[in-house]
């Protein structure tokens, strides 16, 4: 089909977290404009953190994002602990990892079933899928898995959104042995549900679109990195956390309240696909089988496969959760004294939020008040990559016509699972 004129203006893309627009203009068969535009109201979190006392910092940091509040809390706690020279106990680290398992399950399932799946099932939302006899059971399965993630966060963290129990150098409330045994049962019972999830997504037809780019994720020598590690790039290898400003080069873009970022190339990607591209070998056995089944192997440069990478990671973290509960039962939960030696200094915390690399960098004064704060948000790092993907995708699928092209553009952006409301409060103007 010869398409001479296309005018796509997706104002406030739906089924993503936050506000962004997609603009595509084609005239006389020539692509004149392709733009990924961020219109979220700026939120200025770094300014809000300034002058805050260490005790309240992770409580405020959590509010950057309702969907990955645990990620922000843990990055924040790690930054504060690094600044004060604190090394948390094994129990604290295991509990944090288990809390994180809950968040990854909840966040990935929210995206896979509620935000992405409607595109593949020809629906506008999960609500209409619930009304459809054909798909209702699949959606209910997704909701059960989502609830598993939330229940883990409630049990370990106190609640699902902005949990309260995690604090600097410990937990304000500890789970009981009964809690852990209950979670063990819940996690094991989820295994057959995961198999059904893999089959559902195996049935979805993803566009065969690839564009080579750089993938950045945390990497840890002993484990699939979630809350500790070095910065790893598929282009340039390992970097230490204090080199993060050289990796995430942020810059302002006209008409975007979020900043964009670049490293070795004109753009890079973070998130589930970036993690699997960097850390595939460390996936748990069932997750590797799921990856095989779904045809996901590194180096995969199809951005739509980020959906599949999330499916594989969901399997991975359920396996990890079972293992973490076993370890916690083995060491036995103990009450611990939470000691926090406050001192002046700078600390960097880095985690893999469900949507990718997240860094908090704080400088404290000697009384434990924040002098300067900087946060690098996953979706900011993806904006430039989304823009470049769209620039290549649009001319390649021009012959599909306006409606199909619009849907493809929307699906591409959704594949990144963008969290735009997080991404609109970047600080750091002078790039060091």
């Amino acid at each position, binding site marked *: 089909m010869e398409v001479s004129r296309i005018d796509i203006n997706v104002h*406030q893309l*739906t*089924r*993503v*977290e*936050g*506000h962004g627009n997609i603009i595509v203009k084609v005239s006389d068969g020539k692509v004149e404009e392709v733009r990924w535009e961020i219109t979220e*109201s*700026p*939120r*200025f979190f*770094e*300014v*809000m953190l300034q002058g*805050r006392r260490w005790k*309240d910092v992770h*409580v*405020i940091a959590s*509010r950057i*994002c*309702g*969907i990955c*509040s645990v990620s922000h809390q843990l990055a924040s706690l790690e930054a504060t602990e690094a600044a004060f020279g604190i090394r948390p106990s094994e129990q604290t680290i295991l509990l944090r990892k288990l809390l994180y398992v809950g968040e990854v399950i909840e966040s990935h399932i*929210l995206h896979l079933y*509620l*935000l992405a799946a*409607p595109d593949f099932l020809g629906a*506008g*939302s*999960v*609500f209409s899928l*619930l*009304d459809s006899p054909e798909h209702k059971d699949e959606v*209910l399965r997704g*909701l059960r898995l*989502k*609830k598993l993630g*939330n229940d883990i966060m409630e049990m370990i*963290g*106190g*609640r*699902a*959104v*902005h949990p*309260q*129990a995690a*604090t600097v150098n410990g*937990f*304000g409330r*500890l789970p009981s042995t009964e809690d852990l045994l209950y979670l063990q049962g819940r996690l094991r019972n989820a295994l057959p549900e995961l198999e059904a999830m893999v089959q559902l997504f195996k049935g979805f037809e993803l566009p065969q679109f690839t564009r080579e780019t750089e993938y950045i994720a945390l990497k840890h020598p002993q484990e699939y990195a979630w809350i500790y590690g070095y910065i790893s790039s598929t282009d340039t290898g390992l970097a230490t956390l204090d080199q993060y400003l050289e990796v995430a080069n942020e810059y*302002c873009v*006209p*008409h975007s*309240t979020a900043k964009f970022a670049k490293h070795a190339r004109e753009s890079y990607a973070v998130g589930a696909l970036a993690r699997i591209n960097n850390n595939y070998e460390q996936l748990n056995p069932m997750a590797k089988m799921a990856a095989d089944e779904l045809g996901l192997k590194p180096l995969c440069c199809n951005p739509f496969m980020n959906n599949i990478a999330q499916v594989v990671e969901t399997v991975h973290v359920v396996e990890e959760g079972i293992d973490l509960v076993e370890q916690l039962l083995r060491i036995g939960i103990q009450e611990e004294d939470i000691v926090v030696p406050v001192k002046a200094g700078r600390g960097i915390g880095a985690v893999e939020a469900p949507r990718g690399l997240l860094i908090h960098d704080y400088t404290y004064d000697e009384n434990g008040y924040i002098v300067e704060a900087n946060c690098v948000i996953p979706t900011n790092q993806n904006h430039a990559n989304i823009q470049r993907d769209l620039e290549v995708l649009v001319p390649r699928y021009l012959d599909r016509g306006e409606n199909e092209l619009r849907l493809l553009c929307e699906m591409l952006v959704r594949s990144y699972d963008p969290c735009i*409301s997080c991404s609109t*409060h*970047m*600080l750091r*103007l*002078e790039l060091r």
Partner: protein
Amino acid sequence: MKPKIAVFDFTCCEGCQLQILNCEQEMPDLVAALDIITFREVMTERSDHYDIAFIDGSCTTESEIARLKEIRQRAKMVIPIGACACLGGVNCFKNLHPMEDVLKAVYGQAAPYYDTIPARPIHAVIPIDFFIPGCPIVKEEFIRVVQEILAGKAPYLPNDPVCAECKMVGNVCVFDKGQTCLGPVTRGGCKATCVTGGAVCWGCRGLIDEPNINAEKEILEKAGLSIKDIVEEFSLFNACQEDVWK
């Protein structure tokens, strides 16, 4: 006829919308009882003909003021949800700094191109019919309010302080542990979840009607905290001062 529901997001973390989606077990019943017609975070379908508008987030730009006025014209009921919408919440920290400094700190020379005004709660911009407080909102409370509206009743909002519920749950008082807490002056209805969860009450549900704020200050002073600490304790979710929008 099922009431037509719209959920709108303003400046926020979208955690309160997520709490609606976290009603996993209740979702089939919610979908059966309500006609959810606009909910951008999870729906492509949308319509401007709604009866009840739930609003997540605070108002922080000129364009958001215009959007709120339009929603007010269309909706029979406007219900802000969460601390950002009800109190201004954490967004109001930026009000403590001059706006041009805030913009410059984040966007540098590009600062003049960005639309931002001091953050304010929804009721500072348009009249509201009810509100569901909390950071985040409590799922069970959201469902109860929906049930009350469906039954044609005026929704109920607790006016006992968090302290009362905290005692019923059997928590050790955080003041006895040498910590401070906004429980004595904060609206209950959360089952003192933060104290139960091992933390303190940060006052996310806002103050009860006619709170004895001074008594709380005395306790804080007795606990040996500075005025700076007290101001901070109160400002975590309640930093918004009325002179910002009046």
